[in-house]
């Protein structure tokens, strides 16, 4: 019996108040360890789809299975626990907390997971080393460049050893050099077995992914 897909969605729909349909029935699956890119024009429903996949939003129709488990019947606390343990987020605007140092930002998801202070700081340091920022752990986000902030963001996403990494235009605010470094990091993580789903406008990143899911007007093209 083969392992269940990391993500399975069937006829996924999301209609907002006022009747706007961001997703109109999307069906696809992403295998464990796959690197998939979601592409499409602005307003086509990419971010809505990513939010549902990250359990930050609930679909108004269809089903979503994460690692084979149906998410529809789960309560807020269960969804939070699932998100904390299985999913890592990387954002276009980095979304680091400005008053915390890079080290504290990386350690924050582990704090929410209930890890003790010493082990989580140790792991946070290791993750910063991993993304090449071992010496900048005490710097606040304002003291880091855009590329460095995004690397801190990736380290933070990896804090709780997620099986699934979701990234929303992770290179959208970066120059080409930094974008290349971030892409290389994603590939490295994928090679280690992490499932990656990222939303992008960048054809170069799309070309690097194993599969591209094109969304248009709330449907897969």
């Amino acid at each position: 019996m083969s392992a269940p897909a990391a993500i399975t969605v069937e006829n996924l729909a999301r209609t907002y108040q006022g009747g706007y349909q961001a997703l109109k029935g999307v069906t696809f699956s992403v295998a464990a360890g796959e690197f998939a890119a979601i592409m499409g024009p602005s307003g086509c429903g990419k971010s809505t789809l990513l939010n549902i996949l990250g359990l930050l939003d609930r679909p108004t129709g269809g089903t979503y299975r994460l690692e084979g488990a149906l998410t529809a019947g789960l309560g807020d606390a269960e969804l939070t626990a699932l998100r904390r343990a299985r999913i890592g987020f990387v954002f276009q605007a980095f979304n680091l907390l400005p008053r915390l140092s890079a080290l504290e930002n990386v350690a924050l998801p582990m704090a929410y997971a209930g890890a003790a202070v010493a082990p989580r700081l140790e792991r946070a340091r290791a993750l910063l080393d991993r993304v090449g920022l071992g010496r900048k752990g005490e710097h606040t986000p304002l003291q880091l460049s855009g590329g460095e902030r995004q690397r801190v963001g990736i380290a933070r996403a990896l804090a709780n050893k997620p099986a699934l990494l979701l990234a929303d235009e992770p290179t959208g605010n970066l120059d080409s050099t930094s974008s290349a470094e971030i892409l290389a990091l994603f590939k490295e993580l994928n090679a280690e077995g992490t499932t990656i789903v990222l939303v992008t406008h960048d054809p170069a990143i799309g070309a690097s992914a194993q599969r591209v899911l094109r969304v248009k007007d709330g449907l897969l093209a």
Partner: protein
Amino acid sequence: MKIAELGRSALQEIGAHRTRSAMTALSLSIGIAAMLFTFSQTAGMMKRYDDALRLAGPGRLVISPRRGYAGKGLSPGLTFSDAREIRLRYPELYMVSPRNSHYGLDGRLDSFKNGDLVGRGITPEWAKRDWVYTMRGRMLNERDLAESARVCVLVEAGSWIKKPFWAKYWPEQALTKHISRRDPLGRRILLGEHLFTVVGVLKEPPKDLDPRWFRTWGGSGQVLVPLTTLQRSLMPRYQKNPDVVEEIAVDTGDAETAAAYLRRIKVLLLARHRGEEDFEIKDYREIMQSALKQMKEFVVSIMIIGLVAILASGIGIMNVTLATIFSRVKEIGIRRALGATRADIIWQFTSEAMMLGVLGGAGARRSASSASGRSRRARSACSRSARYTWAARC
């Protein structure tokens, strides 16, 4: 998230918005300080009531001329003779103390010259209650009273142990100032047109230790003389009946007998005043309760102000907290994405508000305790003076 981390996070947020946090804590402080001050005042008031009753005596009655009474010309008014009659009729009473005063009395002692002294005519029984003084020389006695002797006891007003800021410009009594420089004991003082011998000096306790110091008006200085001497030598010539007194203080010696003696004395005085009820007899407890009622109304009004302040600051804090939450919606979203539960988020903001509350409360406690410090000193002093009273009774 652990409590320590929530606390650290709250402190970080408070530190990041110092002005907002300080204003919030200040508004809380004001409200809580007002409440604490009110509570301490209420507690102090009840204690003072007990102490004042203990000082005054358990069965204290106060007889005074009825205010606004239009006489029919039949009654001679409240007189020293009434007091004598009460004493004669009820020898078992612990104290019958008539008193009259002459305000604006001229006095001269060496270089001291003043026209605003208060001459108080008393009998030796005066010293049986309210005794919180230190005595030098001797007190007035029955012989002084019988002979209408021209002797007097000077009252040296209490000073301050620690002068409060509001008393900085409170004038010191001229007589006290003079006698503190030169001992008047045994010397002669000119009161009105007559020379008196100073046979004693009564020193009042320090004002901070005397809960009663606000209640008596001493002009530029108080001089105690035998009541008969006041009537003969010091009362103004326009006074129709020099025998009148402004008050007769009676102590039955027992709270339970006060009501019965009140009725008996009333019957006696009505007969002596030919049916004219031109006097009133009050149980001292009623006087105190009336004063207490006024104080309570005052305290309630302060409490209402405190509640309004707390309510206003509470609404202000809610408003600020809501504004803070709305300004941090993005941060909340990030934290949720990183695995924070709703409870984590709620606790984060609650711990911040609680921390501000604690800071505000601590500030309030500090200001309220300094404000109530005087009351506390007075309360403890009151107990001390009460003990002193019974020990030093002459």
